[in-house]
């Protein structure tokens, strides 16, 4: 009796869950990419992270800030893992405002690994004003802040199309089938051969989109590799302990005539 009740219950639950809302016609489902960082033991592709940083630095960083990252993060384990010299050189290539000095004056100096990523604009208002009234979002946690995560970011980067007939777009608005409402204020900045990859990889739009998305996924979850590694150990430990405790329980309960 109870068994049939449970069956009924499970069945109704699945019927309920399968009643998914109709997908909005104005937004395509993101492309599913087989990311190396997916899955229980997923890790980042180091070379892709380094290339992705290059795309970020040469393309995205002119409008998007990444204020929660520091240059030192680029050399930390689980990230792009640039060498110490490379990180110092990257940091030093930015002029950072510091101060006030002993005279009360602000001054600029070359960046240090401990500095946060330099933002392209002094504040949100300036960024908004310079970009046609649309604030280019900070990219530190962007992958976690969008439904669909890395797939969504990648899809938007490769999702630019000519608008279908009948759709008119205002000045400074572009057509992108993966964006809600299909309208986006960010122009299509990627074109084949735009950056020259240091490792000789051909910089197609698809390659750059994948690389920069990988970089953004790491930026949002720099702990991902350590999390996965620790998680596997924790689960193995817990499973072994559970087995031991289960056997102890069976032994202890064998003293009484009750099932456990």
């Amino acid at each position: 009796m109870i068994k049939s009740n449970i069956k009924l219950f499970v069945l109704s639950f699945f019927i309920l869950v399968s009643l998914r809302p109709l997908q909005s016609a104005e937004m395509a489902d993101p492309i599913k990419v087989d990311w190396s960082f997916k899955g229980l033991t997923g890790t980042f592709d180091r070379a892709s992270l380094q290339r992705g940083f290059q795309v970020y630095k040469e393309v995205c960083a002119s409008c998007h800030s990444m204020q929660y990252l520091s240059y030192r993060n680029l050399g930390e384990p689980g990230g792009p893992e640039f060498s110490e010299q490379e990180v110092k050189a990257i940091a030093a290539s930015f002029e950072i405002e510091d101060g006030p000095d002993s005279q009360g004056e602000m001054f600029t100096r070359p960046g240090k690994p401990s500095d946060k990523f330099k933002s392209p604009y002094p504040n949100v208002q300036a960024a908004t004003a310079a970009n046609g009234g649309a604030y280019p979002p900070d990219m530190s946690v962007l992958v976690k802040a969008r439904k669909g995560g890395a797939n969504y970011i990648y899809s938007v980067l490769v999702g630019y199309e000519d608008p279908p007939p009948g759709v008119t777009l205002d000045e400074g608005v572009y057509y992108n089938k993966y964006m809600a409402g299909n309208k986006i204020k960010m122009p299509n900045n990627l074109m084949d051969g735009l950056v020259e990859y240091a490792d000789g990889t051909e910089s197609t739009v698809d390659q750059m989109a994948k690389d920069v998305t990988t970089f953004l996924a790491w930026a949002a979850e720099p702990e991902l590799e350590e999390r996965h590694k620790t998680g596997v150990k924790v689960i193995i430990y817990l499973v072994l302990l559970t087995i031991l405790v289960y056997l102890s329980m069976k032994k202890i309960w064998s003293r009484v005539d009750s099932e456990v």
Partner: protein
Amino acid sequence: MSEHEYTPKSKAGKWFNDRLPLLTLGAHLTDYPTPKNLNYWWTFGGILTFCLITQIVTGIVLAMHYVAHADLAFASVEHIMRDVNYGWLIRYIHSNGASMFFLAVYIHIFRSLFYGSYKSPREVIWIIGLMIYLLMMAAAFMGYVLPWGQMSFWGATVITNLFSAIPLVGDSITTWLWGAYSVDNPTLNRFFSLHYLIPFLILGLVVLHIWALHVPGNNNPVGIDIKKPSKDTVPFHPYITIKDAFALLVFMIIFAGFVFFTPNVLGHSDNYIPANPLVTPAHIVPEWYLLPFYAILRSVPDKLGGVILMFSAIFILFVLPWLDTSKVRSAVFRPIYRQFFWILVIDVLMLGYVGAMPAEGVYLVLARVGTIYYFLHFIVVMPVVGYLEKTDPIPMSISEPVLTGGAEPSLARKVDDKV
């Protein structure tokens, strides 16, 4: 109860115990006679204690690094995630811990509903439990506000605005709750303060909950009164402690699965966007564990009506022991009520589902049907079924279950003989 006979063996122990009988209490807790037929649904009390302690410990560490200020809160959470040693682990345990806490409490509550654990003489345990549940919802709601993301801000706005539905004084109350004329820095400050306070109130109530439990002793799957101690009981330690430990470990494996492999799946992606009072998210949804109540709230076209109905949905549970007219506790022996129990479970799950959907079209219809059924279950089904239902024979004791085939009728008794 056997603790009256307990005397410490050492002289120092006796000296101390005469002044503060902590050792007597310890002996009571270890010897506590527990029904030997408790199934795994009974392990969630221990699991919940673990959840509370986990939330308090991780929460205290998070509070060492978190900054409760509208301009700094979001950045301080990112600081915890990136710069604090194992900050990501502590925060993910805390945020997923809230969900695991509610998962466990819902199983605990439905277990109580199935086996009639709320009935005489355990009404006070039930009521204290509901108070804990209410405080948990308050703590969870305020905790969700602290990262000061978009869902934090707009969730706080929606929920605090509910109070403005109160006639005459509503707006004043809302302003008083906010400490400002909208959800703002003062709101965040007081939510942090209260979020830190509430778990300790819960801890106090948990002590009362367990104390009240130890007066009549545990209910059990058969739902009958048992002699204690007897051959129907086992001492709490080591029998129940080891069984609780086993169940807790299984629970922890699931918990760890969320924390390490999909730590954000139970949250909303919008909460990684910093709070912006000028941009309203397309859909404002609370955390999953509050969704059934959110569905009830939105099923009523009138704001005040919705608020009243939502609070009623919780407060009706307080009078449950007096709405249930059946003399049999366990649904195992209640063939009709048992069906309605599962319908209620499905109903609540459905309300949770539609609570996550836009309040329109088929979802609104489902929300209304679900809401009506929810109240019907408690106001009509429980009293009427309890009165009319012909229950199955219940056994005399745990050790002497009813034999199938009716071979030994003397081992079974009718309900009428019982009371």
